[in-house]
């Protein structure tokens, strides 16, 4: 085994970008504030790229998200591999036409004559009190769109490995960063390479209950493990990592073993991505489950500002423990 490095998500993403750009001159970067003159991105994930790879490949853009995604689409169709940043996930709503009607569909609508190998990186997540227009987890929307892959890593190693895979992928990928996990350090192998898309990871083994989760909620579910153990519940945690296409095999194998499942996500519960996973588990393991599949997600409201409300909006470790207890009957 090679050496391990301690780095946080920002450093992991930055490392992935440096490696990808060095390895392939076709990799481009564009977005607001992303050149070094502007600070290498608001969280600094793009630091050093414009200095090292030049202003032609690394371009700070106007605040024009439709133009950003359009430029990425066009460049991708012409053989480049652009990594476009939409600063926050809520702002995908101003360029949704470019993403949904174009990036995701051009390969199909052209009968495979053109393709759009681009990555959209975006940041989101409650916890910083940025309230209703800066915190939403909308992965469910994109997972419902055919033609785009959706990735939501929870830790630095996965951030590096999955971003490398997204960049190499021949199709558009949405790479979702969460503001609560970006600053948390973790172990990353010095030679951490691409991690295949579409593969979940069992991050805690257990026998009573499978918790399927992703992004920052992996961390909160892990924080629930102690409380679960205390009440004698042995929980298996599956970090889904890729939301679309999702790893049915790993999830179903785990739930087949434990007999109980709970999906936990930050997105609003109603019509959220957890419904697909819960519905699939219930369908495929019909008659084999010891309890109904539970879904924990955000309440039906915008992300609130007040800390006390924001905390209540998020599924907390205690909520996971309580739901697990109820599930055990």
């Amino acid at each position, binding site marked *: 085994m090679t050496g391990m490095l301690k780095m946080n998500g920002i450093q992991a993403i930055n490392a992935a970008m440096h490696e990808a750009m060095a390895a392939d001159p076709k990799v481009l970067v564009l977005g607001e504030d992303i050149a070094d003159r502007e600070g290498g991105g608001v969280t600094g994930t793009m630091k050093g790229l414009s200095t090292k790879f030049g202003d032609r490949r690394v371009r700070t853009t106007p605040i024009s998200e439709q133009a950003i995604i359009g430029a990425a689409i066009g460049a991708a169709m012409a053989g480049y591999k652009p990594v476009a940043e939409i600063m926050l996930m809520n702002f995908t709503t101003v360029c949704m036409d470019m993403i949904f009607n174009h990036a995701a569909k051009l390969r199909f609508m052209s*009968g495979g004559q053109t393709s759009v190998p681009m990555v959209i990186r975006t940041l989101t997540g409650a916890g910083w009190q940025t309230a209703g227009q800066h915190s939403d987890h909308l992965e469910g929307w994109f997972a419902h769109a055919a033609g785009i892959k959706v990735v939501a890593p929870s830790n630095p190693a996965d951030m590096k490995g999955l971003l490398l895979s997204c960049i190499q992928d021949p199709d558009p990928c949405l790479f979702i960063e969460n503001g609560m996990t970006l600053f948390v350090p973790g172990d990353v192998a010095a030679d951490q390479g691409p991690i295949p898309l579409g593969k979940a990871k069992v991050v805690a083994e257990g026998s009573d209950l499978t918790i399927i989760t992703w992004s920052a909620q992996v961390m909160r579910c892990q924080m629930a493990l102690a409380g679960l153990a205390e009440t004698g519940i042995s929980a298996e945690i599956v970090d889904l990592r890729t939301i679309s296409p999702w790893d049915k095999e790993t999830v179903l194998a785990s739930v087949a073993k434990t007999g109980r499942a709970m999906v936990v996500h930050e997105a609003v519960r109603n019509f959220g991505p957890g419904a697909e996973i819960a519905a699939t588990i219930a369908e495929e393991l019909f008659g084999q489950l010891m309890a109904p599949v539970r879904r924990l997600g955000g309440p039906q409201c915008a992300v609130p500002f007040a800390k006390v409300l924001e905390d209540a909006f998020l599924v907390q470790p205690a909520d996971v423990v309580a739901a697990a207890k109820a599930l055990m009957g």
Partner: protein
Amino acid sequence: MAELSNAPKPDGEALVDIYRRMLRIERNDDAIRTAIRRGRLTMPYYSARGQEVIPATIGHLLTNEDQICTIYRGIQDMVAKDMPLKPLWAEIAGRIDGTCKGKGGPMHLTHPETGVMVTTGVVGSSMPIANGLAWAALLDESRRVVVAFFGDGASNIGAFHESLNLASVWKLPVLFVCPNNGFAEHTRYEVSTSVDRISRRAEAYGMPGFTVDGNDPDAMFAAVSQAIERARVGEGPTLLECTTFRFLGHVLGDDDFYMTKEEKDEALAKDPLPALRARLIAGGHASEEQLAAMQSDIEAEVAAAQEFGMNSPLPSVDELRRDVFEQEIAA
């Protein structure tokens, strides 16, 4: 608005080629309309009859490497860009030999070999993508230029603004070409647009903008040549508003209730196709016989394409699992 200086002029050969492209557009348009009327094609159709000078001149001036992004009303742009008619017909007939295997249809025709990169059904959306293709042209250190076609109505949508600004700041080799036919569906220009000339909007982006008579091959030739030259030498984008008229309304079947008989008659009287034909003859650039031969060649090409398209096999339903991603989706 900027002034056109030292305007290049089309010679006789150029005019003949422009006419040939116009005729190919028109004969093809006619065949499509006939096929729809006879129930042989089932598709929404947005004819550009009357607007032929614009794409024909542009098609004449572009090279094969140059690229276009166009819209639902874009078949004329593709035909002028030398897209082969056989796969075009197979596509609009929904067949497997279509450019897009029948998946895209008339609103999403694509043919990268001839530079037809995107056809979009969303108003305004040709422009942001044209920028990206143009960015790639710069990165490739090629001399490629990209033409983004869009309508007058599209000049009021956000994507127009973002695209022109970015293209200007990045000095991208793009021609923003707006055939202004005075209507967006049934809505008159003045009802929706706050400026008398769309070209005036170029100034808001520090970009040259021109309004040219889109039915006049000389004016079009001059404006397009100069815009292409600017783009090729790295001077950036140009906005061209080309005034014209849609003879057949928004979508096939449109009864034109929203226009006056006078304005329509006036426009029809200025049909650019017979006008250029007459000029070719009068100027001695082509003889009646040559033009008749040209026409029968084109009609034969269109007929063969129609024949080919209509007889191409239907796509298999397995196609729904293909081309979503590079890797086929499992059955």
